[in-house]
C-alpha cells in the first residue's frame, strides 16, 4: 500500500543464539532478538546442572563446609563463610572476636586476589577485540592487556605475589574449610601475623595496582564523592592518565562503555564482614546491624533494609519440576530433562531469585560489586559500617553501565585492603580463636555474603542431619531467567538496547590463528558471573 516517497519502516528482525559465553562454570548461552540492529529481547540460558542441594540432603550438618566451596572455584572462601555462619546461626554458637577477624580477613583477601585476576585474566583481554580498532587508544590497550602478553606477564607476577603474601594467615587454599562453627581452625603465630601485615602493606594495593594506578589514590579517606572527582583524578597527573585504571576510564568513554549494559537499575546486597563484638552470637535478627559492608535493597528510588524473609526463588522458567516461587527454607531442587522442560517454556538451569519490596512487589535485582557499592552510599551508617557514596552518586549522575560496574569492582580493592590492615592489627594472638559449640540436632538458619556477596545459604537441620540446603549466589540473582510474571532477569534486561552489528563471519585459517587471537565478533558479551561486558557477540544461525 505504500506510495513512492513515503516512508516505509521495514523491521529487520533476527534471532541469534550465542554459545559458550560464560568464562566460568555454569556455562552460559545467550539468545537475543535483534530488530534493526538493536537487541530488543534476551534470554540467558545456563546449560549445566550438578545438583549440590540434592547432594547435601541427609548429610552431616557440617557437610556444607566441604561441599559449598566447591560450587564455585573462584569464591570458595565466600561460600565457606556463608556456610559457616548458617551453622553458627542454627547451632547458636559463640564466635570469639579473633575468629570473626580472621574470617573477615580471609574473605576480603579472596576478593583482593580475585579483582586483579578477574580484570587482567578474564575481562580486559576482551577489550583487545579488534572491533575496537578504531579507538586511538587501541594499540596501547593491546600492548598492555592482550592475552599472554609480556606486560600482562609482569602484572600477573606481581598479582600472584600479592595473593600469596596476603594468605599468610594460614589459609592455604580457596577450597579450604578452615572456618568451623564456633570459630576458625587455625591459631596464627606472631610470624604469621606479621608476615601477613607487611606484604599486604606493599603488595595487593600497591604492587599489582600501584603501577596500574590503583583506585587507592582516589578513594583514600573516602574524600572522593562524585563522578567529577574521578575525572579530576584522571587529569591531575600523567601517572593517573597512564595507569591501567586511567586507561580503562579513557578507553571506556571513547568506546561508549558508559552507555551500555544499564541493567534493571535496582540493586541488592546482603552484606559482608562483621564487627566482632556485635556478632559474637550470630542470629538472623542481629545480622544487619553487625555488618560492616551493609546489606540493603535499592529499588531505583528508595533504599530498604534487607530482610531474608522477602527472598523468593521462582523456577517457572527453570528446568525444575512445576513452577511458582518459594522462600529458600521451602525451596525444592527437583530437576527435569531439559527436553521436557523446553515444552513448558523452561530454558535454563538458573532459578530466578526475586525480592519482595514492600509496597512494590517481587523485583529482579542486580547483585555484585555495583550493587554493594550502591548500598554503601545509603545514608545512616553506624560508626563501624562502611559509608561511601561515590558509586551511588555516579549511578545517579550517569546511570549504571559496563564502565561503572567495573569501577565499582576496582573501587572495592583499596577499601578492603585498608580494612584488612585494621583487622590484622586487632587480632589478639593470645586470645581464643575457637569456642567448641554444642552440635544441636535441629535448627534453621540463613546467612548470605561475599565477593559474590549476595551469596546466601539457607539450612534446615533435622535429626542431626541436613533436611534442606538452599544456596542463592549473586550470579543467580544476575543470570536468572524470567519469572512467572514474565519479568526478565537482570542480565536479560541489561542486554536490551545494545546495538549489534551483524558481521559476515570470516574464519581465520589455523595457521593464522595464533597470530591473531582477537576474534571477529560484534556486540557485547557478558561474563557469566559478573555481568560485565568482556567481548563481543558472534552470530550463529538460529
Amino acid at each position, binding site marked *: 500500500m505504500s506510495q513512492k516517497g513515503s516512508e516505509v519502516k521495514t523491521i529487520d528482525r533476527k534471532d541469534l543464539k550465542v554459545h559458550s559465553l560464560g568464562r*566460568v562454570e555454569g556455562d552460559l548461552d545467550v539468545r537475543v532478538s535483534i530488530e534493526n540492529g538493536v537487541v530488543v529481547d534476551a534470554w540467558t540460558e545456563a546449560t*549445566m546442572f550438578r545438583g549440590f542441594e540434592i547432594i547435601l540432603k541427609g*548429610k552431616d550438618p557440617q557437610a556444607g563446609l566441604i561441599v559449598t566451596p566447591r*560450587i564455585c572455584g573462584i569464591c570458595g572462601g565466600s561460600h565457606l563463610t556463608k556456610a559457616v555462619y548458617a551453622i553458627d546461626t542454627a547451632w547458636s554458637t559463640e564466635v570469639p572476636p579473633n575468629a570473626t577477624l580472621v574470617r573477615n580477613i580471609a574473605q576480603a583477601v579472596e576478593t583482593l586476589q580475585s579483582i586483579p585476576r578477574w580484570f587482567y585474566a578474564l575481562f580486559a583481554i576482551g577489550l583487545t577485540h579488534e572491533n575496537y580498532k578504531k579507538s586511538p587508544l587501541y594499540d596501547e590497550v593491546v600492548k598492555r592487556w592482550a592475552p*599472554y602478553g609480556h606486560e600482562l606477564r609482569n602484572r600477573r607476577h606481581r598479582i600472584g605475589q600479592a595473593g600469596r603474601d596476603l594468605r599468610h594467615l594460614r589459609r592455604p587454599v*580457596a577450597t579450604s574449610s578452615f572456618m568451623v562453627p564456633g570459630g576458625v581452625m587455625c591459631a596464627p603465630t606472631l610470624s604469621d601475623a606479621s608476615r601477613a601485615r607487611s606484604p599486604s602493606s606493599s603488595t595487593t594495593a600497591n604492587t599489582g595496582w600501584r603501577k596500574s594506578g590503583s583506585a587507592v589514590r582516589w578513594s583514600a579517606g573516602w574524600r572522593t564523592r562524585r563522578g567529577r572527582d574521578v575525572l579530576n583524578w584522571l587529569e591531575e597527573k600523567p601517572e593517573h592518565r597512564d595507569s591501567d585504571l586511567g586507561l580503562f576510564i579513557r578507553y571506556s568513554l571513547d568506546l561508549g562503555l558508559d552507555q551500555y549494559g544499564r541493567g534493571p537499575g535496582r540493586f541488592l546486597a546482603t552484606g559482608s564482614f562483621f564487627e566482632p563484638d556485635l556478632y559474637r552470637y550470630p542470629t538472623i535478627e542481629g545480622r544487619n546491624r553487625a555488618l560492616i559492608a551493609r546489606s540493603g535493597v535499592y529499588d531505583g528510588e528508595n533504599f530498604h533494609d534487607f530482610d531474608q524473609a522477602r527472598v523468593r526463588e521462582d523456577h517457572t522458567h527453570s528446568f525444575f519440576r512445576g513452577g511458582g516461587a518459594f522462600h529458600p527454607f521451602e525451596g525444592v531442587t527437583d*530437576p527435569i530433562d531439559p527436553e521436557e522442560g523446553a515444552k513448558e517454556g523452561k530454558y535454563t538451569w538458573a532459578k530466578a531469585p526475586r525480592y519482595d519490596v514492600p509496597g512494590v512487589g517481587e523485583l529482579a535485582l542486580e547483585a555484585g560489586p555495583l550493587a554493594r557499592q550502591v548500598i554503601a552510599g545509603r545514608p545512616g551508617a553506624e560508626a563501624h559500617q562502611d559509608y561511601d557514596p561515590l558509586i551511588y552518586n555516579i549511578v545517579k549522575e550517569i546511570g549504571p553501565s559496563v564502565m561503572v560496574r567495573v569501577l565499582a569492582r576496582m573501587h572495592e580493592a583499596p577499601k578492603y585492603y585498608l580494612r584488612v590492615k585494621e583487622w590484622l592489627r586487632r587480632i589478639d594472638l593470645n586470645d581464643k*580463636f575457637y569456642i567448641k559449640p554444642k552440635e544441636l540436632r535441629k535448627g534453621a538458619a540463613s546467612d548470605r555474603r561475599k565477593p559474590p556477596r549476595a551469596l546466601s545459604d539457607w539450612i534446615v537441620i533435622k535429626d542431626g542431619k541436613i533436611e534442606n540446603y538452599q544456596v542463592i549466589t549473586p550470579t543467580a540473582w544476575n543470570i536468572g531467567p524470567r519469572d512467572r510474571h514474565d519479568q526478565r532477569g537482570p542480565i536479560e534486561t541489561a542486554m536490551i538496547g545494545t546495538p549489534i552489528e551483524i558481521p559476515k563471519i570470516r574464519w581465520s585459517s589455523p595457521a593464522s590463528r595464533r597470530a591473531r587471537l582477537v576474534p571477529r565478533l560484534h556486540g557485547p558479551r557478558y561474563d557469566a558471573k559478573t555481568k560485565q561486558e568482556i567481548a563481543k557477540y558472534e552470530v550463529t544461525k538460529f
Partner: protein
Amino acid sequence: MANLLWMHGGACNGNTQSFLNADEPSVIDLVRDFGINILYHHSISMEFGEQVHRLVHQILNDEIPLDIFVFEGTVIQGPNGTGRYDMFHDRPKKDWIWELAHKAQFVVAIGDCACWGGIPATKPNPSESVGLQYLKGEHGGFLGKNFRSKAGLPVINIPGCPAHPDWVTQILVAVATGRLEDVQLDELQRPQTFFKTFTQTGCTRVQYFEWKEPVEEFGQGTRKGCLFYEQGCRGPLTHSPCNRILWNRQSSKTRSGMPCIGCTEPQFPFFDLAPGTVFKTQKVLGSIPKEVPQGVDALSYSISAAVSRAAAPKWAKEEMFVP
C-alpha cells in the same frame, strides 16, 4: 609446539583458578617459553561461540592436531544417560568429550571431578557424573578401562580439589618438552613424582604424630598436637605432596590446623559425608582409629601407639606453635 585444548564439564572452575595462580612456570610462561599453544580455554581465550564450534570441528576433522586434551570437571551423563544436563553447542557435552579424547595424543584429567567424579558424584550423584577413566575408586569411568590416547597412554590423572597449579603446569611442560617417559604413573594413573609421598610427608605436626599427641580442639588447640586422632585428618592415608610443594608457596591445610580431607584420593569426600563423619576421626572401641596408616595392621598400630604414648617426652604434650 604442542596444541592444547582445555574443556570443562561438571566443574566449579577451581582448577582453572588454581592454574591461573601457577608461577613455576606461569600460564604465560607456558605459552611464551614452553611452546604450549592454547587453542581454547573457556576462561582465558578470546574465542567463543561459533569460533569454538569451528575449532572443535577442525580438530575432529584432523585439520588441527590436538596434542594435549585437558579436562576439568565431571562428565555429566544425566538424565538417564542422555547427557542433557550439560550441553555444549546444543549437543550433550559428553559426546564432544568422547570424540576429542580419541583425537588427542595425551589426555590429562585435572582435579578430582575429571579423575573420579569428585563432589558431584557423591551419593545420590544427581547429575550421573563420572570421571574420565574412573568412578570413585572403580576403574572404567566415561572412557572405559582400556582407553588409551593416541600416544598409547591412559588418562593422566592429576587429582586434588583443586589440583595444585605446579602439579598441572609441570606435567604439561613434561609433555610439551618430550620428558613424558620420566613421568611414572601409579595404579590410579597419577604421576608418582607428586603422588608417591603422603600428605603427611613434611607436615610440621609429624613429631606429635610420632608421640601420639592429639589436637584437643580447633583454634588455639592447634598450637600443639596431630589432627589424625580426633579431627579425622587423613594425612597419613592420603597421597599428595601438599606438605612438600606448599600452597601459595606458604602453607598447607595441616600446617594451618585443618585436617587433611583426602582430596587427592578417589573416595573423596569420604564416607559420603554421612552424619558424624565430618572433621571427626572414625574409631573402633571408642579410641582406636578405624583407619590406621597405610600398610600397618590395626593390632601392631595399637601396640606401637601405646608404647609411643608411654614413652613420649614432656615437650610432646606442650604447645609448639605458640604466638
